[in-house]
């Protein structure tokens, strides 16, 4: 027996001695049998002559008749000695040898088989335990990984959603900023000439005051009417009052129309952004389209030709600024990509269940290959840094919130055709 690292405690081939393999109960009955057959004594002695097993008939005598070798794995390990006086005991002794040899041989086989079987079962069991332990460990590891993975994916998804929402918000703000710049320009123009008119009027009012003061002073001196009249005419001309009087009417009416223009722009802007309307309300999409056109008027005026093919639409209930976001972003997209002087055709119609609005241009169109991507956040065909790729994503989100769909097709004369379908909510 030996102990090694992998749990084997039995060495195949280890030498055995006879006492390990033969029991008293194996040997003694056989020796007794020889005695019963008439022998006086029978015994086994080891290779040095020491007695291993022995039986003897107390009354028996006689000399040793047989001395036979007993082999184990081909080696002599003992001698079988039978003594007595009867004839034929040699044959009996040979029979004893054969019997002992058979018992020994079978015993050795049994011991070897049992030992290797036990060893193999033990080592297999150890291996199974080890494998089981490894599997349990690996399972725990994967379980942890899987748990973490779910968490990590959730975290990342939330993070991405936050970032996307943030960018959408920024894009809306950017669109509003762009709009504000245009509007400021629009307001600045009338404000400029109103201010200039007021300055002129201030000068004129000074001259009128001087004229009135002149008459008042001369009347108090009791001068003849002719003198006052002549002096007055001279002063009238000196103050260039004929020109001023002719100008005043124009100045005032110009200023008034300028002021009206400013208030109209502000009203449009307010209407477009719906700053006063928090929730949902009845909305006429044609009116929203017009409002969008008017806030973009400074950009459209010299750059684009707009055709309207609008049919009367039923009002729908929604947040009105969503419609503004949709139209503003699509038209800005056309101004950006539709060529130098795009022709924009706006059409609307309704089949009772759905309102269909189309914004078509005569620009280069949108290649079929990228049509599935243009509504994705951050998709842009413009050089890095010049487009956020969020304009049409804002549109998509707004259409979705209105319960509608948006698609892009080829316009009849080439170019892109954005088709928005919004349910009326009356189905």
């Amino acid at each position, binding site marked *: 027996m*030996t102990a*090694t*690292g*992998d749990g*084997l405690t*039995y*060495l*195949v*081939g*280890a*030498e055995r001695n006879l006492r390990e393999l033969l029991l008293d109960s194996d040997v003694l009955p056989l020796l007794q049998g020889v005695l019963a057959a008439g022998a006086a004594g029978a015994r086994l002695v080891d290779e040095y002559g020491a007695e291993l097993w022995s039986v003897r008939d107390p009354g028996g005598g006689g000399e040793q008749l047989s001395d036979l070798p007993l*082999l184990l*794995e*081909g*080696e002599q390990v003992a001698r079988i000695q039978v003594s007595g006086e009867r004839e034929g005991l040699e044959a009996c002794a040979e029979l004893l040898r054969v019997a002992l040899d058979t018992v020994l*041989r079978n015993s*050795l*086989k049994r011991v*070897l*088989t049992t030992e*290797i*079987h036990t*060893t*193999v079962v033990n*080592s*297999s069991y150890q*291996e199974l335990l080890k494998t089981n332990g490894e599997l349990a460990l690996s399972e725990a590891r994967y379980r942890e990984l899987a748990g973490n993975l779910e968490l990590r994916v959730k975290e990342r998804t939330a993070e991405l959603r936050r970032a996307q929402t943030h960018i959408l918000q920024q894009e809306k703000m950017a669109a509003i900023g762009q709009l504000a710049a245009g509007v400021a320009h629009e307001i600045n123009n009338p404000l400029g000439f109103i201010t200039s008119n007021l300055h002129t009027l201030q000068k004129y009012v000074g001259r009128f005051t001087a004229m009135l003061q002149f008459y008042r002073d001369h009347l108090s001196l009791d001068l003849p009417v002719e003198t006052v009249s002549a002096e007055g005419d001279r002063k009238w001309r000196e103050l260039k009052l004929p020109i001023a009087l002719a100008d005043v009417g124009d100045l005032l009416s110009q200023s008034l129309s300028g002021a009206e223009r400013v208030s109209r722009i502000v009203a449009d802007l307010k209407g477009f952004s719906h700053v006063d309307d928090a929730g949902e309300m009845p909305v006429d999409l044609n009116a929203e389209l017009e409002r969008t056109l008017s806030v973009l008027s400074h950009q459209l005026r010299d750059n684009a030709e707009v055709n309207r093919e609008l049919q009367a639409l039923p009002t729908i209930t929604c947040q009105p600024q969503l419609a503004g976001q949709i139209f503003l972003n699509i038209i800005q997209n056309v101004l950006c990509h539709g060529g130098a002087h795009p022709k924009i055709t706006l059409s609307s119609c309704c089949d009772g269940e759905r309102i269909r609005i189309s914004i078509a241009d005569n620009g280069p169109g949108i290649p079929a290959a990228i049509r599935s991507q243009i509504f994705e956040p951050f998709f842009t065909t413009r050089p890095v840094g010049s487009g956020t790729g969020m304009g049409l994503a804002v549109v998509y989100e707004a259409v979705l919130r209105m319960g509608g769909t948006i698609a892009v097709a080829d316009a009849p004369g080439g170019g892109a055709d954005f088709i928005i379908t919004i349910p009326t909510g009356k189905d």
Partner: protein
Amino acid sequence: MIEYSEKERRMVLKLVYYGPALSGKTTNLLQLHEQLTRQGRGELMVLDTTGDRTIYFDLLPFFLTAPSGLKIKVKAYTVPGQVCHDATRKAVLQRADGVAFIADSKPGETESNFASFDNLERNLAQTGLDIDTLPLVIQFNKRDLPDCLAEEEIRSAWGPTGIPVLMASALRGVGVTETFAALAGLVYDRVDTRFDLAGGHGLSREEFVRQLTTVHDDNGEGE
């Protein structure tokens, strides 16, 4: 080595016949038992088998005595070749002094030969034996088969390993004793360096191999 006792002047060596299933390991031992003189060998012991397939091992012991009186017992074992009996193979391989790898010459068995050799390498490592220094010979058995692998092919595949390769047909008794003799020679070299068989015990390599592999007289049953 299983045992060495200077006091008892006794040494027990272990040789193992390894290889894939059905390559002829047991047949090798049967033929050795058949061919070698009874003088110097014991009986072949075959542990229980299932349908002639070894499931434990077979054992054939040999004996010789050096001029110094040192008794040397050489126990040749087979392992079960079937993949499922790996634990038994490992147990039998423990403390082996030499290995004869019995390969199958059938072209379809090439994979099994390599797989079994890999298994041998792994099990040697696991039982603490070094394949680079352990006496090892390879026997390509079943050379009598008509469609067996060409010898040049075998030699070009296994030659580079530096391991002696022998051709045999164990069923016909060809090459069996030669394989045993080749392994015995290598084992002698290794034992000699540790125990000085030639100088200390007066046992030469030739004598060692001759005593282990003396075949029957041509005419006789010899027993």
